């Protein structure tokens, strides 16, 4: 039996269980991924041997904790090819990273009459923070449109990104449409007009090699829990010159250089942004998750998922009454498959699939403007990772047909 890329399935004990009397097929990886034993053990190991606060205290445990925490920063920098560890800030999540960029950097560079450009396929976390900046600064928020296939319309981007644009903020990969956006091209376009570009990497960093230097993005955000690490740890990458300009979003211990009675000076990058005791075990676990992904090789992860999509997407499209959102061409589609079955509400479908042991998401995927754009209330979404297999895809396809028949026939 197929055991996932490099037999990785055996590293994820959670996958080996029955749900509603059926073997679990976990296809909700765009929401959060499962964690391998190596990551779980890294957390246990840290608390059993090294637990102490970082950057303070001269004792041995504090030294070990600091060393591991900072080593994770180096791993992140290398993983996304950041030019320097000073550009890597640990946050709580992609959402927190984007909020900090919007509140601290956005409010610094956007003023009245300026324009902020996002796209129709953004997650709420890359929409609402920019709405707040636009409202506060009396700026305008503009949306790049999509092609008929659900890809970002580069022609629309060329029309909307002008000398009035100060910020371009775009998902690197969509959590609904399963497309990868041309960030490098958009960065060039933004920079030609003197604008800054921010990429939301939550759905890209877990699934493909990331090179922020080659993309030439000004900021990049990602979440640990979507790439094998626990919840509560995220990353904000920024170009050093911009991070130096940007005021801290939070103040307190850890981030200060010296505090007087009336004012304070701040530490240098990256610590200037990390106020208070950080998520030390989370950062260390993220470092271990990155080791795990590097052992697999991100090129191999990308290729494996591409093969799974090539296997699954045509079979899904072949089911009568199924509509898949995003490009029908598997070469243009990531492992995120959003779809609807005609006449069946996605919640009813998801409950049916759950009875067959198959975990999918149903709802608006924190992308209500996109749902409005697509003129649907909600969709179902199956999202794959490297530990999923062709057998998982077969069970998924078969279960959709069975649930469809159940509702078509009424009571069986």
């Amino acid at each position, binding site marked *: 039996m197929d055991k996932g890329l490099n037999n990785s399935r055996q590293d994820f004990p959670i996958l080996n269980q029955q749900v509603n*009397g059926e073997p679990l097929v976990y296809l909700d990886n765009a929401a959060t991924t499962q964690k391998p034993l190596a990551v779980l053990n890294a957390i246990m190991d840290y608390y059993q041997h090294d637990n102490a606060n970082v950057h303070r205290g001269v004792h041995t445990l504090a030294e070990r904790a600091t060393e591991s925490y900072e080593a994770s920063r180096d791993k992140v920098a290398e993983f996304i090819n950041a030019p320097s560890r000073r550009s890597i800030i640990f946050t709580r999540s992609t959402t927190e990273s984007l909020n900090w960029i919007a509140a601290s950097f956005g409010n610094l560079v956007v003023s009245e009459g300026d324009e902020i450009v996002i796209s129709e396929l953004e997650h709420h976390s890359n929409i609402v923070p920019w709405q707040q900046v636009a409202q506060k600064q009396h700026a305008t928020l503009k949306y790049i449109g999509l092609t008929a296939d659900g890809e970002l319309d580069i022609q629309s981007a060329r029309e909307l990104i002008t000398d009035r644009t100060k910020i371009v903020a775009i998902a690197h990969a969509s959590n609904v449409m399963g497309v990868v956006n041309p960030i490098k091209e958009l960065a060039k376009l933004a920079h030609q007009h003197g604008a800054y570009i921010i990429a939301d990497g939550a759905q890209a960093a877990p699934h493909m090699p990331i090179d922020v230097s080659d993309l030439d993005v000004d900021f990049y955000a990602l979440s640990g829990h979507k790439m094998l690490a626990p919840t509560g740890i995220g990353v904000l990458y920024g170009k050093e010159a911009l991070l130096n300009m940007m005021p801290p979003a939070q103040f307190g211990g850890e981030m200060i250089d010296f505090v007087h009675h009336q004012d304070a000076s701040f530490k240098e990058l990256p610590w200037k942004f990390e106020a208070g005791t950080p998520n030390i075990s989370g950062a260390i676990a993220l470092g271990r998750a990155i080791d795990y992904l590097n052992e697999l090789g991100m090129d191999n992860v990308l290729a494996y998922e591409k093969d799974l999509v090539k296997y699954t997407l045509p079979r899904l499209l072949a089911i009568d009454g199924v509509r898949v959102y995003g490009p029908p061409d598997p070469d243009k589609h990531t492992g995120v498959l959003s779809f609807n079955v005609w006449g069946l*509400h996605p*919640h*009813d479908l998801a*409950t049916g699939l*759950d009875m067959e042991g198959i975990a999918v998401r149903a*709802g608006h995927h924190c992308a209500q403007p996109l749902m409005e754009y697509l003129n649907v*209330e909600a969709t179902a979404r199956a999202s794959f990772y490297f530990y999923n297999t062709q057998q998982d895809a077969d069970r998924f396809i078969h279960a959709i047909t069975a649930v469809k028949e*159940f*509702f078509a026939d009424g009571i069986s």
Partner: protein
Amino acid sequence: MGLAKLNELYKEVILENAQHPKHYGDLPQATGKLQLRNPTCGDVINVSVLIDHDQIEDLSFSGSGCTISQASASLMTMALLHQPVSRARELVMAFSHLITGESITSTDEDALGDAALVGSVAEFPARIKCAALAWHAVDEILGQKGADFND
């Protein structure tokens, strides 16, 4: 187990009410109206109620959602039509207990009629919100009405 368990949730009367909902539409002469959304899925339900002499003379619902939310709304209109406001609120409370797995009196169960069949949703925790949406809306309308009458 598989799909057999679906029969417990999607009973014939539930499928029938979702496909052909009762009292679907707007009520122009309504004395109280409310729209509620389920923020986790985007479902929307509008409930309209006409109260006369402290009794529900008419009520209707509209909106979009899954089988459970539509059927539950339809069965609610059947259960609450012509009920006194205070009795209707008791039945909303009984329904709320039923769908969270608590027991209710046989009098309340009889009064709920087919709506009591939605009670099996208690075994599908992720779907309880779908079943509750319309009932929350009507309860809020009736609560406002009650306040008015006390003035």
